[in-house]
Every structure is written in C-alpha cells, then in structure tokens.
C-alpha cells in the first residue's frame, strides 16, 4: 500500500467520521427539541403562577380569571393555560396537545400537584391549569421523557459507522490508487528498457478517466517503441554500410603489403572507398538532421528554376561522360520558402538517381509546372528499369535497395530517396513514385508555394 492509499484512506475516514458525528448530533438534538411542546413547566415560578390563576378561577369564576389575565403581562415561560373539558383554553389560546396529555397524566398519577391543578369554578365547571413547555426553555426546567441513554446503543452505532466508513474508505482508496500503482510499475518497466510494457491489460475492467490515461500512456509507449526500433534499425544499417567500405580498405592495405608492386592500385582503391565513406557520412548526417526539429532554422525564398538549373549543370557534366543528358522544361517561375541545402539535396538525389538508372545515351526529362492554386509539381522521368510495383513504398526506407539483379556499376547506399522524401515533407510537400506506361520511373514532387 502506497502513501496515496493511506492519504485517501485517512482523509476519507476522517471525513466520514466528522460528517457522521455532525449529522448524528443534529439528529439527536432535533429529536429532543421536537419534544419541546410536550410537557409542562414544573419550577417554583410555574407553581406560583398556576396557584395564583387557580385561586382567581376558584373564587372569581371564569370572569375572575379573565380579569387576572388582562392585568397579566404576557411573558415568556409565564403562560398559564386554562383548559376546559373540551380541551379549549379559556381565552382561546392554542393548546399543545402533548403538553395537555402530560398534564392530565400528572393529575391522574397525583405527583407535581403544585404545577398542574384541576379547579372547579363556583358555577361547577372543571378546568385544568398548567404552564406549557416552550422550545426556548432550558432543558433542566423541562418535564419530559428522560434523554435516551448514550450507552450502549449509541456506542454500538458509532462502532458500526466507524467500521463501515473504514471499509468503504479502504475500498475506495484501493480503487483510486491501484491504477496509479499499475501506471507506475509500467512506466518503470518501460524506463528499464522493456519497450513492450503496456498498462491497458491491467486496467481492462475500468471505463473511466484512469482507463483513458492508461490508453494514452500505451499510445505513447507504442510510439516510443516504434521510434526507438526505427533508430536501432537505422544504427544497425548505418554500421553495416560503414563496415563494407572499411572492409575493402583493410583488404586493399593487405594487398599492398602482400604485393608491393600493386601499391598504386591499392591506393586508388583506398581513395575511392574514402570518398564513398565521406559521401555516406554526409548523407547520414543529413538524414539525422531531418529527423530532428528544424523549426528554429532560417528559411529563405528559393527559386526552384534556379535551383534545378544549378543541379543540372553539375549532373549534366557527369552525364555527358556516359552519353546521357538531362533536359529541363519549365512553364512557370516557381519559388518556395524553405531550406536551400535540403531542397538542393532532395532534388539532386532524385535527378542523380534518374541518371544513374538510365541506360547509356538515354536522356532524363525534368519538368516544372505551377497550376492556378499555386501547386508546384516537379517531375523527373528516366528511361531506366523502373521499380517493381510492390516496392514503390519501401524504397523510401533508409538503406532499402530494390531487389533486382545486382549491377556492380550501380553504387549507392539507399539513402537518396529516404532523404529526398523527408526533406520534401519538411517543406509540407510530398513525393510520389510511379512506373511510366512506356517504361522508366516517374518521380513526382508536389510543393505549395
């Protein structure tokens, strides 16, 4: 049981105790004050007043008594009722029935004779005289049934209430604190690296805010798990990609040591591998930058026409070597707000890919369009083998390579498209791949101005 349990338990129990004590006290007092109109006064003053009135009535008749009442200052606790056989007061005041009944009882039993009197007037009418109890009379002056004994009935009730309130408090405290304990256990397990820890199965029976919190927690855990697994996979792939060029470099060094006459070839091999490593590292860094929050970085207005012309200058220089050419057709001037380097890398990767997979001598077409809704479309169309339909989505995964027969002259790390897609998405655009009906791959990049 945690501290929360005890806090809720003690808090609730105390509340129950205080509330039941207050309510019990009120009920007790109410029950006894309700008896205020029952009973009659039996102190000396009442005896005296009743005696005076009795004398007036006995000797002066009804008129004597009425004359006395006229001089009588009406004061609290000093009322003397004169009740006839029909139960009506001589001068028409209200008669509390409980008090009358007790007064009659007292007469029959013969005690309290001084405070209740039966008087016969000279003409022979019988009256009962008494001073009725009123609510504001202090209890010690009252004549009434004795208060109920505190022991043992009340004590038993108190114990019962205490027990029930403890039981209920404990149950409620468990009900509230258990899901929190489950959440805590699960988050600890998660922190210890058990990424498959989930809390919903433990809260299966609930259907309240706690269950919702659990669902949100599990959603977060699932998201974390996916992200971490993706990171792990990426790290794994990166280390594998780095391993290959290093393995070749070590072999080149070994060859140079084994056969010194091959030093030249080994050195140029090492140089080539170093360049590959360098390029790979650049791509990996870009990719990792794309996975972080970039909202803080400066944006600028970039002319897409100029950007593509820039890229084509470089690419065409290399494409000429294999007799290929990249043709650029634009029907509009388009520019976007964004990160120059990222857009450059994205477009360069796509265009270079197109050249790489195109057969020698074939040209690659790049086109730029802008429609009336300011939607910019860049299409890159090559005449290469295309990509199998089932793999059109997968090629955007880092290090993914299309499962076709390996062509040794095609090198790359499977990072180009992954970077292009993420970079374009950072600019709220998207990248689409499709195989052209007449052959070749079409990369369609959509951007908003």
């Amino acid at each position, binding site marked *: 049981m945690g501290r929360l349990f005890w806090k809720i338990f003690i808090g609730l129990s105390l509340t129950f105790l205080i509330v039941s004590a207050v309510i019990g006290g009120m009920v007790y007092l109410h029950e006894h004050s309700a008896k205020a109109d029952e009973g009659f006064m039996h102190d000396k003053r009442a005896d005296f007043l009743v005696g005076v009135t009795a004398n007036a009535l006995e000797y002066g008749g009804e008129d004597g008594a009425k004359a006395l009442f006229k001089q009588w200052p009406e004061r609290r606790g000093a009322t003397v009722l004169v009740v006839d056989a029909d139960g009506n007061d001589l001068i028409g005041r209200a008669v509390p029935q409980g008090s009358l009944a007790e007064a009659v009882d007292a007469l029959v039993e013969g005690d309290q004779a001084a405070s209740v009197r039966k008087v016969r007037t000279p003409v022979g009418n019988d009256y009962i005289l008494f001073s009725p109890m009123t609510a504001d009379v202090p209890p010690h002056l009252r004549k009434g049934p004795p208060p109920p004994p505190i022991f043992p009935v009340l004590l038993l009730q108190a114990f019962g209430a205490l027990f029930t309130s403890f039981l209920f408090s404990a149950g409620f405290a468990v009900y509230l604190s258990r899901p929190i304990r489950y959440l805590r256990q699960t988050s600890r397990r998660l922190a210890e690296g058990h990424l498959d820890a989930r809390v919903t199965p433990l809260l299966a029976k609930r259907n309240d805010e706690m269950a919702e919190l659990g669902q949100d927690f599990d959603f977060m855990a699932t998201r974390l798990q996916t992200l971490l697994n993706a990171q792990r996979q990426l790290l794994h792939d990166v*280390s*594998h990609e780095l*391993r*290959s060029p*290093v*393995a*070749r*470099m*070590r*072999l*080149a060094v*070994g*060859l140079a040591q*084994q*056969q010194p006459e091959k030093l030249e070839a080994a050195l140029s*091999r090492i140089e080539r591998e170093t360049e590959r490593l360098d390029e790979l590292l650049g791509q990996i860094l870009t990719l990792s930058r794309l996975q972080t929050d970039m909202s803080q970085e400066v944006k600028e207005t970039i002319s897409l026409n100029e950007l593509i012309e820039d890229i084509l200058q470089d690419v065409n220089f290399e494409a000429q070597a294999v007799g290929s050419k990249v043709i650029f057709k634009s029907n509009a001037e388009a520019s976007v707000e964004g990160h120059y380097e990222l857009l450059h890398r994205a477009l360069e990767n796509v265009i270079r890919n197109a050249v790489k997979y195109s057969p020698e001598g074939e040209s690659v077409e790049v086109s730029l369009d802008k429609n009336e809704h300011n939607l910019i479309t860049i299409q890159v169309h090559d005449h290469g083998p295309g990509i199998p339909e089932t793999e059109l989505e997968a090629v955007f995964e880092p290090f993914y*390579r299309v*499962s076709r027969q*390996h062509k*040794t002259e095609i090198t790359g790390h499977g990072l180009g498209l992954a970077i292009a897609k993420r970079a374009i998405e950072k600019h709220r655009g998207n990248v689409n791949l499709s195989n052209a009906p007449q052959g070749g791959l079409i990369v369609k990049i959509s951007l908003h101005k």
Partner: protein
Amino acid sequence: MLKVLLIDDDVELCQMMAEYLGAEDFKMEIAHDGEEGARLALAGSFDIVVLDVMMPRLNGFDTLRLIRASSQLPVIMLTAKGDEIDRIVGLELGADDYLSKPFNPRELVARLHAIQRRVAVRDETRKQPTDEVLRVGKIAIYPAERVIEWRGTPLEITTSEYSLLEVLARNAGRVVSKADLFLQGLGRPETAYDRSIDVHISNLRQKLGTLDDGRSPIQTVRGTGYQFIPT
C-alpha cells in the same frame, strides 16, 4: 593446396579477397548469394567455406543450415563487429570459427591455415590407417576416421567439435585450460571476448547428453577450463 569457397554479396570485396588469398596459395571460388554458395559447397570438393552473415535473401545463418544439413565441411563465418549474438548463433549452428568484419586479411589467412593443419592431420591419418582406438569411459575415438562413438553410436560433429572432444578425452579426468583448448583444439590462440570454446562445448554437451548420474560428461571448472569425466 587448400580449396576455399567464399560466399559474400560484396562483389568488390570478393574480388580483392580472391586476389589476396590467391597470392597466399589458396585456390579460390566465389559465390555472391547464399543459395548458390550452399549449392557449390555441397557439390564441389572444397576444404573450407568462408561465409558472410549479412547477405540479402538467404543470409549466412540460413546458408550454414543448408550446408550443415548434409555436410560437416569446415565453415568460417564473417560476422558483424561487436555483434556477439551473431557469433554465438553461428557457432551454435555449427560454424567452426568466426571472424568479425572488417578484418585484417592476415588474420583470415591465419584462421584458414589453422583449419588447413587440422585437415592435413586428417588426411595424414587417413593415408596411414592405424587400428588405434582410444576408449575413454563411454566414448570411443577413431582418429583415423575422425569419428567419435558415444555409447556405441557415431556422433554427428563438426571438425572443431571433434578436435576439442579429442583433446578433452585424451586428457580425461584432468582439467584442460581454455588457452590449451584454443591451441590444441582450434589451432589458434585465444583472442579477446572470444566465446568460441564455450559455444562448441555447449554444442558437444547437447550432442553427448548426460551420464547415468545426470551430470554432463564435460564439466566446467570455473575460471580454469573444462574436464572430461572418464566414466
């Protein structure tokens, strides 16, 4: 001349390895994927297979399973550096040795020579058949055939496992240190973080089963090495 089959999807690396090992007097053949590699390994008369773990389609482990299904040909696995699981999985599947990539080519040559020596010893003993049978407890070792019988039935074991069990059996009752097992059993010195012996021993224990009293015939002597119980 040792005939080596190299199975690796890295075309350039294969060419360079062929060039390097060719100059070291190995006869090389290359396969670029697991299926082709397993087919060549089972069909050809190779002395040793060098097998890369990370390959597309059929990976190194599956290739090793294919080879081990019908052959005890010595296999050296090329595993990822720092990936201990890969090494142990490879050894458990019956690889004779491993080398983490990127590796020093001289190291590969040394490992190949170690296996070559074992093969040479085997060929030597085959050429001059002797009736020598080494019986220790419930096992019978026929060095000429490199066959070990356990309770009368021949064991399906790799060359590395055979060598280790032979070393242990010849020293039955005595504790053999790991360093000695490396040198005499695997023909090479122990390297850092090397779990090869432990995994081979674990494989052997599985194949041998238990003695009548429930213990394994190969006992671990903590911090020292292993001991074969001659009962």
